[in-house]
């Protein structure tokens, strides 16, 4: 679980610390609304995260995750409604089955759970979202920049 005592880190503070870029693929109805609630509640969380909203986690093609790493992400978060709460009834169940295999495949090929994170965050869980982001950012910060020799990253 997330470390609820972790405080938000503002980029620019601290000396020359590596600031990871995290892409978050989230569903519109739950996690995006949860992120919105974190905002309206004025909860602070690391600004390293860039949110991409999709209608449902069932729409998240694993290729999108690969594309994020290819294009420059140091970490990826994928988040949606809790099982049973999907706005489209079963989209997140399809996603869960897909991710179960995909994350193990990425683990085999050099992208492990320090960089690829999955969660269920509901529309009411603003605090959970903020804590989650801080935790993901700190884990990816610890893991360091996405290795330039990792074949998933496009090098120019």
């Amino acid at each position, binding site marked *: 679980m997330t470390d609820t005592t972790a405080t938000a880190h503002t980029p620019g503070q601290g000396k020359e610390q590596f600031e990871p870029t995290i892409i978050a693929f989230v569903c519109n109805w739950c996690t995006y609304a949860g992120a919105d609630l974190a905002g309206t509640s004025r909860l602070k969380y690391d600004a390293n995260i860039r949110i991409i909203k999709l209608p449902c986690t069932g729409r998240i093609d694993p290729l999108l995750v690969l594309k994020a790493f290819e*294009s420059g992400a140091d970490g990826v978060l994928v988040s949606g409604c809790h099982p049973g709460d999907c706005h489209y009834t079963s989209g997140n169940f399809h996603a869960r089955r897909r991710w179960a295999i995909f994350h193990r495949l990425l683990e085999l090929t050099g992208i492990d759970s320090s960089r690829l994170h999955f969660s269920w965050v509901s529309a009411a869980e603003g605090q959970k979202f903020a804590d989650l982001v801080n935790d993901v950012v700190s884990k990816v910060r610890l893991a360091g920049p996405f290795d330039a020799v990792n074949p998933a990253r496009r090098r*120019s």
Partner: protein
Amino acid sequence: MTNSSADARVFAAGSLDAVAAALVAAGFRVVAPVRQGDLTRLTLWQPGQAIDLEHFTVNSAKEFLLPATETIQRYDIDGNDFTPVEVAPDATKTVLLGIRPCDAASLTLMDTVFNWDFEDVFYNTRRQACIVVPLVCTRADESCFCTSVGLGPDSSRNADAMLMFAEGGKKLILSPVTEKGRTLAASAGAAAQAAPDKTCDVPVRFNVQAVTAWLADAFDSPAWAELSAGCLSCGACAYACGSCHCFDIQDESAAGGAVRYRNWDACCMALFTKHTSGHNPRSASQARWRQRVMHKFSYIPQRFNLLGCTGCGRCTRLCPAGMTVAETCERIDAICQSTPSVK
């Protein structure tokens, strides 16, 4: 049989690696066949690697002149500012050491295509920096058919120097042919002479003139259905082929900039002729196989007075379905012989 020139060098076959090392020390980049696992590849040779002249390589020398992917342009993107950045073509002096005469011969078509309506600076720069040193073949396998396309195991076409076995394979002769080839001689020891070993026999498998003549009127022939039956439309043959040269331009972008690549492409693949309208004039694999064979044995001869194939046999060795231009030509030849007056 090729005889060695007056300024030839002779050295022990086992010293080829040392000669390569001397070339590297003299400032050349060396490309040579190296055994990797269960196959042999032409690769950028590193000191310490053993050069393998025994096996046929899975790749041709093409990738060192026309790489499978090549960056031909970059773009810096900053807000609305878009700045093209030129990419300097690779001009590193490279020795293609121990390729086959069929590989060297395919450069004639490549040189022609990359200069006939447009001078391709990327190809030409690499080509001019290349020193071509084919090994005369003393062994062939059943996939070789250089003699069917007007070449032979000792062809010196495009060679800057020839490598030849002597004393039953125990020695190698390096025999310069051009000025470029002579620049290598210093790295190969003192001048010496030896008699080259006998080249291998490569039986002629088909009458290529008959094939070309048949193809001139064969676009609508019902024979193509059977000739193409096994093809699964991958690009293994085109990419292994030393004469195939089609490419695709791809732009890829990420934050801060974009890259323009030139990547190999193959007419065997379904997407090759798909129009933006969705129509594909070669939607059947039969049409694509016909295209491949006619391009090599009919259209290229018409346009350039050359064949589009040098008989290296890689397509034969590598095709998962056993499709080969050689077998297609053999069958066409058989059709010609069985119906001499009817096409």
